[in-house]
């Protein structure tokens, strides 16, 4: 949608968003499924759940969060962390839950399709 415009404006930076875009959205929605979290907690959660494989760049995370918020899949509110730190908490909206289901289904189909191409002998196996 706006990828082309950004890439002329900020070439290095924007390419990374582009690569992560769909996936990062899914990861964020998935992470928030259990309740509201702030940005830092989201990175930590993704990192922990992926066993330190996925490290979300702040430069990608915050634009993504604000984008999802703008699409009204997330809503944000200020709150206090356990350490009494003021932070902005994101939570799924109803539309966000619907979107999560949609994205999950799309992800499964994508993985299946890619799986078929990458490992043809193994049929309909989930990763």
């Amino acid at each position, binding site marked *: 949608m*706006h990828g082309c415009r*950004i890439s*002329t*404006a*900020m*070439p290095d*930076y*924007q390419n990374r*968003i582009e690569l992560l875009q769909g996936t990062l959205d899914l990861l964020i929605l998935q992470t928030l499924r259990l309740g509201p979290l*702030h*940005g*830092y*907690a989201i990175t*930590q959660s993704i990192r922990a759940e992926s066993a330190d494989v996925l490290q979300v*760049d*702040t*430069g990608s995370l*915050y*634009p993504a969060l*604000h*984008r999802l918020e*703008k699409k009204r899949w997330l809503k944000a509110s*200020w709150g206090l*962390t356990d*350490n009494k*730190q*003021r*932070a*902005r908490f994101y939570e799924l909206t109803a539309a966000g839950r619907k979107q999560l289901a949609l994205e999950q289904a799309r992800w499964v189909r994508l993985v299946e399709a890619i799986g078929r191409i990458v490992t043809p002998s193994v049929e309909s196996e989930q990763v």
Partner: protein
Amino acid sequence: MRWRRRRQQGLEEELAAHLDMAIADRIERGEPPEEAESNALREFGNRLLVKESVRYVWGWQLAESLAQDLHFGGRVLCKARGFTVLAVLALSLGIGAATVMFGVLDGVLLNPFPYPNADRLVALSVFDLDQSAEAGRRWTLSAAEQREFEEGASLFEGFVACDTRRTLLGEADNPHWVKLVTVSPNTFAFIGIPAKLGRVIQISDGRSDAPPVAMLSELAWRKYFGADPSVIGRAVTLNQQQRTIVGIAPKRYAWWTADVWIPQQGAANAQAEFAVQGRLKPGVRIAQANEQLTAIGARLKSIYPERYPKRFQVRGVYCIDDIVHTPFRRTLFTLLGAVGLLLLIACSNVANMLLSRATVRQREIGLRMVIGAGRLRILRQLLVESTLLALLSTTGGVALAYGGIHLLPAIVPPNTIAEESVVDLNPSVLLFALGISAMTVVLFGLAPAWQITRRGWGEALRGSAKGSAGRHPGTWLRDLLVIAQVGIALVLLVGAGLLARSFIRSLKIDLPVNPRSVAVAFPAFPPNSYNAQGQRESVISEYVNRLRALPGVKAATRTSEIPPHSWNMIVPLDIGIPGRSSVQTMFHTADWGAQATLGYRLLAGRWFTKEDVAAARPLAVINQSLARAMHSPAEALGRQIRLPRTAIKDVRGRAIDTVQVIGVIADTPNQSLRQLPMPMLQVPSTLTPRDEWVALRVAGDATAMIPAMQREMASIAPGVSFYWIDSFQASLEEELASQRFALWLLGIFASIGTMLLITGLYGVMSYAVAQRTYELGVRIALGASASNIFKVITARGLALIASGVFIGAIASLALSRMLQSQLGDMSPADPLAYLAAGALLLTTALLAILIPGARALRISPARVLRHE
């Protein structure tokens, strides 16, 4: 706007919280606090970029960053206040001056008339090919000649004729002198002059039995009737005749600058002469038309041989060319050239300032690139800055142009432009000037980006941090601009100097008397009195005698000729030399006191005596130009000259057709100060009753005599007023006005140009000093003497000025030839003007480089080196 700021703050806080939590986490995991912080920061990445991309997601990033750019650009311009003011001022002046001058040129020269197809209107004139165009031109045609042209000239759509004279409008108790133009009845329909009120003069008004009508110009209507619409249908007294006002012409329609138009009724007197204008058919070239006119002229010559010179041509002269005096036309073009140069100086000046700033700003821009600003973003920032600057200067330029265009026509000397001219802003020129200046600003405003791209930000940071002595890129361009500015300024100064010199010379033009010690007056008789035969002449004679008796008066006279030009009659004279065609000669009358009053210098023979005048002897004094046609002053003496029409009579009323030359006087300007004198012949004033001036000469200031002159007239002839009464100097002033006007404007342009040049030069030099502070500090520390430092700094400036002056002098030599027409007999290579302009430019330019030079001397090496 506020919610935006709150949202920005929110984002700021959100990111700060993220960072805090990351640091806290790391410390908890056992990292030492400092390490934890730097690691967290590294992991976090470029916070500015994160913010920027979030803002991009918000969607108003483009507008936001543009607003940011504008805000920043505004701040940059405010901070560099001196630069901004100078640049805006320079460009505004350039734009304003160029637009105003072109507006005037367009309104006055290119398109002055409101009449449809005015560009095809020509005035018919007979030119004697053996004489100069001015001297050998006959403006008028008799009714019979006119008819011949009307019937024969098939290349014309038609002709109109008119005759102008001064007359009195209104009743005897409060009459006004007005310009009355008698027009052929077809004039209004043919020229396309509408009526603002009432109706125009129609063909039917020209029938000899038609009721007498008159039409007023808008100006006359306003001036004499208070713009009262009820004047239509009112009867007025015009030259003692009752006429009905039938219409008022619209404002711009001032055909022959008349106050009042009346129709020619019935057949014209065979003796009457008319100025005739025709309109060429579309597509007819003037040369073609002239051929046809001349052929008709040849036929006419066989009928009226005395009215045509031996070799002649009948030509149509474009009316615009006639009305706008040729010298003034050249003046306008000169001024247009001057403002063009001014605009050039302004643009190159601003370009130079922008280039200098570009180098100063390299560090800032390099820094912004290092912290991640995209190249395009920087370009946009610079573009916004330049656009702001361009906007400011165009606003200033338009304001100046608007002010100037309304001011200038007010100071344009009278009688130099067509009354019909309307001077207004010319949108296309305004756009052109705006375009040029905007282009300059934007082009050179982007220079920093260009330099950085060429050199890379690393070098930008390193290079300007130190201020090394090396040649910076773009230096040559700046040098070139300075040289160009010096050159152009010199051209302007030389032009102004030449005009000033010629003006000063024309102030002491070769007049036989001091114009301040001569007073001239033109008596105006009320129409209904002093009408008896010879009554007016005796009043004038008595008046002159009274003046002669006044204390302090050295001489007084009546004369029809007051140099440099007066209302006159030009007649073709048969000078009695076989094989020589008639000579177009100015015919004047003079009294025996004229030589003493006006100081005519006798080359041969004598002036009229009291007895010559009293007896109205058929004698003549001629000027040198006429004598030249008779080979020499000595040979001219005693020669009989035939007068073409028996217009003069002796005291007994007998017609006189020959006069004998008794004296030859040196030429005095008799057409204008700038034109060569034409042949002139004077006869005793008693020979012919003519409108006459009265002049007197005193030892001191003649204006002091004016009250006495008025008093004397009142005592001998109550009711007689003066159409004109002032010193001779005052009438010259009118003549000099056009030149004074050009001189003033060119002087103003030249001073502005020089001022711009000085600021530009000063800017470049101060910048050079600032740039080399470090190097100079080192030099001083190493023991360089003050004179050494001074030399280092000023050498470049001097070289630039010298090259500029050299180039400017060459350009001036080439260009000043175009000024020739305004310089009279002065050489356009007048050394004094060049020396003065060069000296003025050199001293001011030197000042502009000496101040930065002096500043260089005050550099404290300790501080400079410690700073490093």
